[in-house]
Structures are given as C-alpha cells and as structure tokens.
C-alpha cells in the first residue's frame, strides 16, 4: 500500500514537471517574443494555447511586436513611447534593451531562432545580417531621406535611419569664455594654429589641461582615427577607394598628408590632455564630468554625449581643427546615421513585419512619432519632412552644420575588429609606447590582412 502511494506521488510530481515544461514552451513556439512570461501575466491562466499569434492577428488589433533598443540613454523614452503607441494604435510594442555589442547580441538571438521584430543596430550590422532582413525599398519614407541615410545593398534599402549623429570636438563655451572673456565662436578656431593659440591662452589663464582625450578603443580608432577614412572627398566612393588602397598596400600612411594632419591634431590634443600623466587610465564618465563641470574646455567625442546639460547648456560640437584643409575638413562636421532600425524577415510573421513597417511610418509621419524622436529623444532626424528643431544643445549645434550643408560623409563600414586592433595601436601611441611611424605600419598591417 505504501509502495503504491509512493509511486502515485512520484507520478504526480513527474506529471507536474511535464506540464510545467509544456506550458512554458507553448507560447514560445507560436510567438517569437523572448519574454513570454510578461505577456502571460496579463492573461488568465491556461489561456496560452488559445492566444497564439494567428488568432490575435485575425482581429488585426492585438498584434505584438518586439523591439530591441541599443541606446541606453533612450530606454525610458522608448518604454513610454511603447505605452503611447499601444493606446494610439492597439499594437503592443515590447521594448527590450541590451548593452552588449549589438552584433554579438543579435548573433546569439539568431542562433536561437529568437530575434526581435525591429532592431536598432549599428551600421556594420546591417551588412552582416542582411540575409535575415526585410527589404524596405518600397516604404514611403524612402523618398524623404531614407535613401540618403538608409543603407542600400545591391539596390535594396535594408535599414531605417533612426538618428543622425555627429563626431567632433565638443566644447564647453562657458568654461572658455570665463578665461578668454569673449564670446566663443568655433569658426574662429578652424585652423590648427588658431586652435593651438586658444589652448595656450586657456592654459595660461589657469586651465592647465583644457582637453579630455578618451582612451576607449572605439573612440580612438573608429571615431578619431576614422576621420582618416571619412575625409576622403566627402563621399562614400572616396572613402571606399581609400580603404581599398590601404588594403592593397598602395597607400603609405607616413607619406599621406591627411594622416599626418590628423595625427598632428592628435598630438596637440595629447599635449593638453587632462589625463596626460597617465592617458590610458582615462575614464569615459570622468571625461564627461570634466567637460560638464568646466575643468576642460574640449572633449573629442560625438553628439550623443548628452549627460552634460544639467551643468550647462552653452555647449556645442565643432569639426576637429586640422593643418591640411583639403575638402574643407576643418569646417565640415563628420555626421551620418549611426543607428538604424532593421526588420526581421525570417522569424517574424508577415503581420508582425507589416506592424513593424507601420511603426516606422508612424515615427516619420505621425505627429506623436516625430515628437518622440525629436523632442523626447533629442535626436536629429534623418528625414526632410520633419520640420521640428532639436532643442538639445549638442544635437542642435550639429544640426546647424548639417542644415548649412557643412557635413562630412561618415564612413561606417569598418570591420568589427577595427576597434580592438587599430584601437590597441592608437592606445599604444596615446600612452607614448610607440612612435608615429610604428602606428602607421601597424594600421597598414591591419588593413592589409583584411579581405
């Protein structure tokens, strides 16, 4: 009798286990949402089987799409937007976030056959993942700027440019004006001599080290050094031709005027670096606060550095002053679409893909969508139909350059390991562990190894 009871209990427990597994898998099989549990809590228990994706889509209202946000500073805005979007359209947008490298995160998600419907990705990811992505060539927003900033591969547009960003020298005008006593106009310091004069003046006036230089490899290699690839005739073709000539070994960096000019500017920044005594222990967040609090006047970074405003709004971004001024590189700000939305076409259902496309249209053409992008996220929109002006100082400053036609093409197709490999060479140079010719030959070696 005891034995029977024991077996019975064991059976019940095993059954419990099986049921536990079963109900967990059911929603996942029908719905590629990664956090099915969130959805489940909103529904009565045991309702899972009935509420599969097809049943919902039949009504046309309850479609659920998942979205991956990869900009940490915008996560709150995204979540609030999703709530409003559901009220307005009835479509649930589930916002996810990763601080991982986007490509790595998505590679894992695709390997698990569980990607998001809409993903906010970096430029190179669009090329890497294109076989999975939906062709967006037929969308309305293409004609309003989507073809300029979106990524076209083999004649098809695969990405929606979410934000235009600029790379350059961020300045804290308050800090400069306090010492010089006159209004700071970035245009007056476009040549390297004028700029050096200003740095000297600041140093003499009490700000001994008026520049903050990042040590992060992505900043050094992809943004600062990346200007070498950007500033090649202000066109995609010019940059591609230059990179190709690096790969073939045709271009020798030490004889290249642009390289030398760029590194001259780098040396100048290095000389006045607040982290100068130990440049490789620089910390991104500390650099941010140095600039915000006015301990330094300049920081080479990009228009995304928005944590400064609580201290001062009198800041802006300017192109890096240089010696060699071919193509007006010292007056044109490097800018381009740095984050792109893509839609999954392999695992998302046609209804979800359509809902995702509707969402992108909403961003461009609906008042609420425009407000979300421009006012709430303070990003510079890539679309010409949007007339809203960004109010955030850095973006506004960058937008001025762009609207005035003073923007420089931003070459973003650099390989994924450029940051770590070329970045290491630049860190070596920054730390004083290598000379310019060694840096040049290391970068040349890196490119020649690329296919």
């Amino acid at each position: 009798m005891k034995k029977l009871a024991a077996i019975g209990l064991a059976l019940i427990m095993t059954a419990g286990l099986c049921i536990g597994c079963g109900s967990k898998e059911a929603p996942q099989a029908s719905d590629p949402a990664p956090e099915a549990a969130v959805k489940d809590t909103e529904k009565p228990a045991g309702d899972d089987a009935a509420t599969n994706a097809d049943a919902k889509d039949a009504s046309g209202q309850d479609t659920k799409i998942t979205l991956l946000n990869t900009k940490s500073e915008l996560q709150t805005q995204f979540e609030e937007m999703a709530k409003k979007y559901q009220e307005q359209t009835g479509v649930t947008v589930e916002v996810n976030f990763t601080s991982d490298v986007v490509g790595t995160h998505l590679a894992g998600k695709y390997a698990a056959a569980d990607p998001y419907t809409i993903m906010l990705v970096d430029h190179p990811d669009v090329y890497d993942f294109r076989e999975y992505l939906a062709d967006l060539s037929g969308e309305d927003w293409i004609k309003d700027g989507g073809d300029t900033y979106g990524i076209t591969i083999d004649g098809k547009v695969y990405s929606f440019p979410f934000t235009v960003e600029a790379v350059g020298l961020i300045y804290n005008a308050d800090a400069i004006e306090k010492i010089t006593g006159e209004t700071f106009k970035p245009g007056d310091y476009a040549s390297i001599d004028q700029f050096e004069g200003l740095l000297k003046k600041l140093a003499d006036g009490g700000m001994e080290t008026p520049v903050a230089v990042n040590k992060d490899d992505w900043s050094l290699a992809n943004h600062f050094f990346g200007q070498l690839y950007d500033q090649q005739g202000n066109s995609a073709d010019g940059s591609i031709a230059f990179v190709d000539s690096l790969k073939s070994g045709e271009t020798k960096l030490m004889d290249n005027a642009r390289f030398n000019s760029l590194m001259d500017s780098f040396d100048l920044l290095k000389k006045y670096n607040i982290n100068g005594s130990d440049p490789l222990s620089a910390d991104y967040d500390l650099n941010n606060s140095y600039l915000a609090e006015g301990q330094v006047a300049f920081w080479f970074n990009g228009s995304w550095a928005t944590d400064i405003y609580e201290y001062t709004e009198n800041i802006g971004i300017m192109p890096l002053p240089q010696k060699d001024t071919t193509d007006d590189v010292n007056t044109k700000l490097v800018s381009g679409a740095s984050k792109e939305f893509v839609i999954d076409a392999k695992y998302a259902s046609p209804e979800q893909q359509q809902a995702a496309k509707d969402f992108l249209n909403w961003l461009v053409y609906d008042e609420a969508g425009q407000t979300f992008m421009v006012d709430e996220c303070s990003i510079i929109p890539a679309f010409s139909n949007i007339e809203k002006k960004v109010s955030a100082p850095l973006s506004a400053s960058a937008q001025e350059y762009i609207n005035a036609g003073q923007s420089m093409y931003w070459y973003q197709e650099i390989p994924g390991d450029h940051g770590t490999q070329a970045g290491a060479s630049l860190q070596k140079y920054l730390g004083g562990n290598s000379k310019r010719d060694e840096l040049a030959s290391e970068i040349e070696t890196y490119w020649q190894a690329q296919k």
Partner: protein
Amino acid sequence: MKRKHSFWYKTGTFLGFAGPAVFCFIMVLMVPFVYGLYLTFTGWNGISADKAFVGFGNYVTTFQDADFWRSVLLTLIYSAISVILINVLAFLLAYLVTSGVKGQNFFRAGFFTPNLIGGLILGYIWQFIFSRALVSVGTKLQIGIFSTSWLSDPDKALFALIIVTVWQYSGFMMLIYIAGLMSVPKDLLEAARIDGCRQWQCTRFVTLPLMVSSFVVCLFLSITRCFMAYDLNLSLTDGGPFNSTVMAAMHVYMKAFTTKDYGVGQTEAVILFVICVAISISQVMIGKKKEVSM
C-alpha cells in the same frame, strides 16, 4: 531475486536515479561540444545560415595565428603564478584559522567573502582601486609605484589580474584546505607528538601527507579556473592596455564574435580545451600517486 540482476532492471534503476542528470549533462555539455567540433570544420561567420565546409582549414589558420599563441603563453604565465600564490596563501590561511586564533570563524567568513562576489563586479571594483584609489594615494604620498595606474602598464596590468585572482580564489580554496586539515585524525597527531615530533614535524610528516587529496582538488580547481578566466579579464583590463592582457578565452571570444570568424574561434577553443585537459589530467594523475590511504 534474479530479477534484480537482469540488464533491464539495472538500466531502469540507473535511469531512474541518474537519468535526469545524464539528460541534462548530454543536452548542455555533450551536444554543444559535438556541435562545436562540427563548427570547427566550417567557415561560419557566426551569423549566416550558410555554414560552408572548409575541412581542416581552420586548424591551419589557428596554428599560424601568432596572437592566439601569444595569448596562450600569457595564460600559462598568469595561471602558473596565480595557482602557486592561490594555494600557498589558501593553505596558510587555512592553517591560521584552524590553529585556534581568536575569532577564527569570523576570519573564515571574511576570507571566503570575495568568492561570493561575481568576477565581473569584482573586476570593476578593483579597476577603481587600481586606477583611482591607489593612484590618488600614490600621488599624495609620493609612492612612485602607485603614481600611475597599474592598468595602463602591460606588465603591471598582468600582476593586477593575478592579485585580484589570488584575492578572489584563495578564500574558496581555504575552505577545502580547512576541511582537509580537520579530517586528519587527532589520534595520529597525538601519537606523533608523544613520539617526539615538533609542531612543524607533525605538519610536515603527518598532516600534509594525509591531506594530499585536498591539494589535488584545489590545484585542479585553480588551474581550470585560471585557464578559463574571462570575466575578470573583461572587467578589470578588457585586454588592455593595447591588447597586452588578452588571455586565451578572451582571444577566442574576440575571434568568434568581434572578428566574426566563428569557425576559427571555435577551433581555438577546442585547442584550448585540449591543452587544459592535458594539464589537468596529468596534474591529477601525479597528485593521486602521492595520496596516502589509511
């Protein structure tokens, strides 16, 4: 009675007890391992649905990858120094907290605590200590060695890694050594003392031989953990300064996910696995021979 010895009965019993564990083991270890082996023969980029077969091409590339072998060498140096320091320190700590000092339970808990903090968080804490706290103390008190961050010098960065590793693991190994020390029968020690052994002779000739198995376990654990070190490497130095502290596991990760050469990365992981297995097995074999059975 006869039924109990039949093949089916035994299989049933085995599956009943070990089945779930075996299932999990196969699913999370064996299947990925075999799949990983298959991937070493492909030129997969980690993303595409298309996995082109390339034969032994990845193995050839791996043997020509100077950066990989440099990272393996670095891992060997790091592991050798760390393993020795971890075990020496752990044994001394264990000896100390079993010798009857005041508050020894408090010390035991204290030394073990670092092990409860995850490697990532620990790395970030120590990054702050090395590049901010020590530097500001160093510049205030004019101590040359601390005036610049340890993490911006290639050699010092390696030592920073070793220091943190030792700090993290010695408490854990200490627990195993405590168990070893406690398990030595008191009557043997008493007999030795009556026979005229001094304290260190008791330790050297009675305690140590009886706790060889603790050493085998601790060495095994510390060697494998050091070889596979990734989290600390990532959060403390992130391979820097200028990729000088990229250890084998990190190199494998970067190859597979940053360079997007998954096939080669996987191949290097397999090579690392083979090296690791060879070292661990020989260590355990040598250790086992020295064990004394009572």
